[in-house]
């Protein structure tokens, strides 16, 4: 069994109003060091696969098929044996 920890974020070219709002609030409470904020989503999958290579291919397929909209988003995935 493998666990895939997937982080999905909006591409740099896409307006991220959630990130902009969080940045504004951080600035308002005095956190002036924060230069930029991007808000994304975290997806965790438990995958039954014979080896890490297959698990990785499963994750890529799932991300391409449904979990990520490549018009507006990109992702990174971390896969570990459990």
């Amino acid at each position, binding site marked *: 069994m493998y666990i895939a920890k997937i982080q999905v974020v*909006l591409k740099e*070219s*896409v*307006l991220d*109003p*959630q990130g902009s*709002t969080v940045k504004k609030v951080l600035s308002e409470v005095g956190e002036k060091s924060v230069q930029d904020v991007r808000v994304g989503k975290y997806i965790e999958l438990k995958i039954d696969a014979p080896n890490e290579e297959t698990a990785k291919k499963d994750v890529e397929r799932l991300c391409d098929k*449904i*979990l990520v*909209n490549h*018009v*507006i988003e990109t992702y990174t995935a971390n896969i570990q044996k459990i």
Partner: protein
Amino acid sequence: MKVAVITFPGSNCDADIYRVLRDQYHAEVDRIWHRDQLEKKYELVILPGGFSYGDYLRSGAMAGFSPVMTSVKEHVNKGGKLFGICNGFQILTEAEFLPGALTRNKTLKYICKTVTLKKGSAGNPVTSSLDPQKELRIPIAHADGCYFATSDVLKQLDDEGRILFRYHGENPNGSLDAIAGITSKDFKITGMMPHPERAMNSVIGEEDGKVVLDLILGA
């Protein structure tokens, strides 16, 4: 005219467009559950507004995988027309029937109000009879209505006359190029965020929805 209105779990404007087509257009309309298939030939299939699958993951993302979409694709391949309203438009982009994506409104607010639309690109056969100066008052009700596409796609849409409507005056959600609706390259598939089916009677406020549906049904 034979029309199918699809109901996904979470659709909530299916009954509205169904009644409008049945009572105001006297169309032969069937309501189709998303687990079923289109079992006869329709001229037009409508994906209604709402929150298909709760809009979890992304608005409209999961509905593209509903069983009914197999026969919707066949309907399109045979030259049938497809029209998506609001969540239906989101489904059309997610399922790659139409280019681009609908992202969170720039204000982060769910916006429910009547806005002004004008005809989009020149040369779009769906809106060819519409005066470019004509202002249409149509309601919107969405949180993810900000149209995004790469600059190449935006240029292509305009060059090919595929922008159906643009917001006029106020751009409520931050859509690029103020896009409120687009069509496919062959103009058979149309999607728009505003709800024409909610503007069909002066008694409840607005009736410019008739102008929009006349164009869609007549195209």
